[in-house]
């Protein structure tokens, strides 16, 4: 039986009304064979995203954030990567899906916004042509004029002034913020159910960052799509995310709601991330504490917990458990909040040791 695009759309629509998550990743591993041996950039990653919700994925460079998302879109070259586990998009298993069927999902049911819009937009083609192309490839019956109208409409929607004129501009004629808006317009041109934004604001200055985040939120409400936002900026997470996944060295190390992760984190790496961001409203006594050391090499990951060489709390764990045994993802104190740590009472350590350092005024208030 052949399904028309309209039917596919319909099944997606009914799907959106609540038959489980739009994206379910289970035990995902991505390995790249290199000359120095295989590099496993993502190990045993699992998460889900519901329609209309936003998942934030945080971590340092090289923690596997982008690699896992590119795997969702099937953008890794099959010859130079090995992907195991399961990724289900709207119920369809995409690991091992043929390239031609994958292509029908890409940019259509799910799309991606890349971080450096100047590099990610084609320098030689007009913004409007790039948008129309994205529309036409999934609407083969549409005319060029329809596609152009759609491009203008999308540019208008993302807040580009005089969209009917700017549609004929080249990317280098746009400002940085406008390019990112155009990139978002291109990601949304086919009303995707799932939008992955890979560090959408990293290359922008702070005022424009806020505008872009607002825009993403507005559009998400309008399109009711699920959003994955990849970032190393916890400010972005606080603003945008419903759920947060913290990644370190290719693994999930903490996963919970944004409130849980930001107010009662239970994994020393998350504490490190929280301690290293400045807060304008915090008192001047608050200290910025960087995480010592560098992210580990994925070629020879540390034994046991991959964070242990940089962790300040290994002395609170009996024996040398941290350096010998990889902790499982175990339930933390909150509902559906999991962490990967051997510490017996992380909540207590956070309240007595970490919080006074990073937010002394907050501790005062609670007293």
């Amino acid at each position, binding site marked *: 039986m052949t399904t028309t695009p309209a039917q596919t759309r319909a099944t997606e629509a009914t799907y959106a009304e609540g038959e489980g998550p739009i994206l379910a990743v289970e035990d995902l591993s991505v390995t790249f064979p290199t000359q120095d041996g295989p590099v496993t950039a993502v190990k045993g990653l699992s998460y889900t995203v519901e329609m209309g919700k936003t998942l934030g994925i945080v971590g340092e460079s090289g923690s596997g954030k982008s690699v896992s998302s590119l795997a969702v879109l099937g953008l890794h070259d099959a010859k130079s990567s090995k992907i195991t586990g399961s990724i289900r998009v709207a119920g369809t298993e995409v690991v091992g899906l043929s390239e031609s069927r994958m292509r029908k999902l890409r940019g259509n049911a799910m799309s991606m916004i*890349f971080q450096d819009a100047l590099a*990610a937009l084609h320098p030689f083609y007009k913004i409007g042509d790039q948008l129309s192309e994205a529309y036409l490839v999934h609407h083969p019956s549409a005319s060029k004029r329809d596609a152009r109208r759609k491009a203008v409409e999308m540019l208008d929607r993302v807040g580009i002034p005089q969209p009917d004129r700017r549609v004929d501009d080249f990317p280098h004629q746009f400002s940085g913020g406008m390019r990112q808006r155009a990139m978002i317009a291109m990601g949304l041109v086919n009303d995707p159910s799932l939008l992955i934004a890979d560090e959408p604001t990293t290359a922008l200055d702070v005022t424009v960052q806020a505008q872009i985040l607002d825009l993403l939120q507005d559009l998400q409400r309008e399109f009711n799509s699920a959003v994955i936002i990849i970032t190393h900026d916890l400010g972005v997470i606080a603003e945008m995310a419903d759920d947060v996944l913290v990644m370190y060295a290719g693994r999930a190390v903490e996963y919970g709601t944004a409130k849980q992760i930001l107010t009662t984190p239970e994994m020393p790496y998350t504490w490190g991330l929280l301690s290293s961001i400045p807060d304008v409203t915090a008192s001047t006594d608050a200290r910025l504490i960087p995480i010592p050391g560098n992210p580990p090499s994925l070629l020879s990951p540390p034994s046991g917990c991959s964070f242990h060489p940089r962790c300040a709390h290994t002395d609170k764990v009996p024996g040398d458990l941290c350096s010998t045994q990889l902790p499982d993802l175990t339930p933390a104190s909150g509902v559906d909040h999991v962490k990967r740590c051997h510490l017996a009472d992380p909540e207590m350590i956070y309240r007595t040791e970490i919080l006074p350092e990073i937010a002394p005024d907050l501790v005062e208030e609670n007293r």
Partner: protein
Amino acid sequence: MFKFTVRRLLQMIPVIIGATFLIYWMVFSLPGDPTAGKCGDRPCPDAYVAQFEEEYNLNDPLLVQYGKYMAGVVQGDFGESYYGVPVSEELSERFVVTAKLGLMALGIEAVIGILAGVLAALKKGGFIDNVVLVSTLAVIALPLFVTASVLQLYLGIRWELFPVTVGSDTSFYALLLPAFVLASVSLAYLARLMRTNLSENLGSDYVRTARAKGLPQSRVVGVHTLRNSLIPVVTFLGYDLGALMGGTIVIEGIFNIPGVGNYIYRAINDRDGVVVVGAVTALILVYLFANLVVDLLYGLLDPRISHD
């Protein structure tokens, strides 16, 4: 675009003056006597030598000689060869042949070079890639006259597929083998350049974007990657036209083609300075115009380059 073109054309004037002067100076300061071989075994009579030197201004200081020569060139008079044939007349006849040969070589180079480079880049590390790498290495390593002689021997004499030499029949078919030999070395460089550029561009962010849009592979490569990879290739082709013109001196000698290269080759042997300067000036003009065309093509290929 118009302003740019005019400016570039004006810039050519000092280049042409400088280049012709250098050539003139070099050719006429070479030791040797142009009348030496003119009168058989005996030296020429003094009266003849005096008349000859008078006719070609050989007794004037170099700058005056050059000035008189250029005054003629501006009026379209390239002087007469030492055999008394007007240079412009012979040059225009021969130029047609060399232009045909050069353009055929450029065409062969562009088509085969780009195609080989694209195929190699798309299947990087595969069979075609290795074939291209090895064969281009062999072609680059062999001197032009060796390639020419080997092909003459096999394709011309043994298998009789192509005429061995060209002579007066300068048809497309007769020029095919010389054009291929002339193109061979540049072709190899071009294939490698194309391969490197394309494979580099295939890894760029905007190509990933194109894939993420759900475009089919043919469109990702054809529309989103090829055009940018062509920019260095076009540059190379433009500059290479000059190198091909230089190569014709060797190739036209080997295949006996009545073109500008052969003309220069003979004139150098005869110490016929007027011919050398005239013919080389013609080649310089070709080179300059080819580069102007390349610069204008940039604007068409890459909208970020504006010529206003």
